């Protein structure tokens, strides 16, 4: 099965605004869910500079962009994406 990719932007803006704390995602994620996702750090994705995307830090769960990302928001999106994939 193809894993869901969680991309955490670690450009300087995102990192300062909280991505450093989002890197703990693997520690807080349910082990059963952890098996189904791949967490990757990324260089600046460019959203912080473009208008209309919202605030840093940015995280992508597959193609779904999360602005002002928190661990809670990311976890919720992971569950949503995985639930959709399971249908």
């Amino acid at each position, binding site marked *: 099965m193809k894993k869901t990719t969680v991309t955490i932007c670690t450009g*300087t803006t995102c*990192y300062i605004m909280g991505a450093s704390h989002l890197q703990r995602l693997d520690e807080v994620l349910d082990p059963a869910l952890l098996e189904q996702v791949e967490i990757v750090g990324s260089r600046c994705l460019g959203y912080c500079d473009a208008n209309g995307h919202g605030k840093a830090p940015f995280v992508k769960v597959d193609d779904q962009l999360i602005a002002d990302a928190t661990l809670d928001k990311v976890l919720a999106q992971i569950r949503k994406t995985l639930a959709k994939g399971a249908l």
Partner: protein
Amino acid sequence: MFYDNNANRLRKEILMRVARAHFTKEPADMLDRIPMAMRPKRSEPSRCCIHKDRAVLKYRCMAALGFSVEDETDELKPISAYYAEAARRTKAVAPALTVIDEACSACVTSRYSATNACRGCIARSCESACPKDAIEFRDGQARLNPDKCVNCGLCMKACPYHAIIRIPIPCEEACPVGAITKDEATGRETIDHDKCTYCGKCLRECPFAAISDLSQMIDVLQALKGGKAVALVAPSAARQLPGSLPQLVTALKQLGFTHVVEVAEGADETARHESEEWAEKMGAGERFMTTSCCPAYIETVEKHLPGMKPFVSHTPTPMGFSAAKVRRADPESVTVFIGPCIAKRVEAAKNPEVDYVLTFEELGAMLVGARIDVLECTDSPADSFAHREGRGFAASGGVTRAIQATAPAKAALKPLLVDGIDRKMLSQMRVWANKSCSGNFVEVMSCTGGCIAGPGTVGNPNTARKQLDSSLEKSPSMVAAPLIEASCGTD
């Protein structure tokens, strides 16, 4: 958790916006528009209306430019005028924590409150527990009369439904020395600077981000133009910014620093001298010695623990050693300490060899403003040579390990660790100073976890600790391996 929340993010966003404006051609216009940009028309206000939000944001910008909100004399003075004034400053402002009184939500004074969970039971244990007759029953539920309540908490303990709660004032709870109190007239918090130790705990705990320290970011950005600035990077830099330390060195040089020095090199010196000092003092029959590298602890001793003063080490701090070395090499250099600490600003104000102090938050904002992405930077070596012992100062227990490694072997070290100064620890230390202490070497860290968990950090303390531990394994030790084989050969 206080490390990453919206209040904390808000503070960083302000710094970033100010730094971004600095690097544009017309900073004034961009600066004056910050409150509007952050709270545009018809956006969701976090207070009563966007106009109050904007007023608070303006005050936040003042602090980010190094001005105390309390010093405002003209409400019409725009952010750009404060910026222009900051750019003309030639010396760091005196360190102070400032309360943005418009942002302070004036938490309720009454500490105990009966909630709707009250069942109005027959037992009414709360009523009988209260020694001041402060419990009244209205509409079948208990109410606390604030005029009679003395905040003893007995009613809360007595209620079988847990219907009585204690509402803390977060900044006052966090302050270990009672320096922040409510002004009875306004209901807002005020800081008593004669008591404040600049530990930063109130700043971090206030859910309204109403407490701020005075940033030196603009001062450093101006100083960088002179081409004489040297960055002194604290040992706790691991995971405070993306990328590795060698990448950070490149980023700092791109920002305009001529040299980048690891303060861990100074910490090596502190360890060497402190272990010698300790051995001498023990030899002279002294009871114990405490570390001196944590500036919030030093302020605590000065203001609240006079009895501890004779036991504090006289060895200069890592920042002190590193700054002195930089100044010896070039007396004209502008020394900028970059760390996790706001109390370091107080230490720097007392040490003429340190010009400015930045937090990792401020440095991050500056890099964003200058559009330097650390991850895109190549590796450069630091202009210093640090060892495992000095680098270890960043986390609680590290100074002790360094002293253990460098102390003369025959002396028996009995270490104690103060991992975070709170009220309980304060009384414990008072006992050590005035009565007896079971150890003979006391490492004191104001922040629980040590510098990597300081109020000016960006990284997560847990991941920072892991990164630090793995970097320590790779770092060379300043203690030469004992020559066991050689001594065996002489037999």
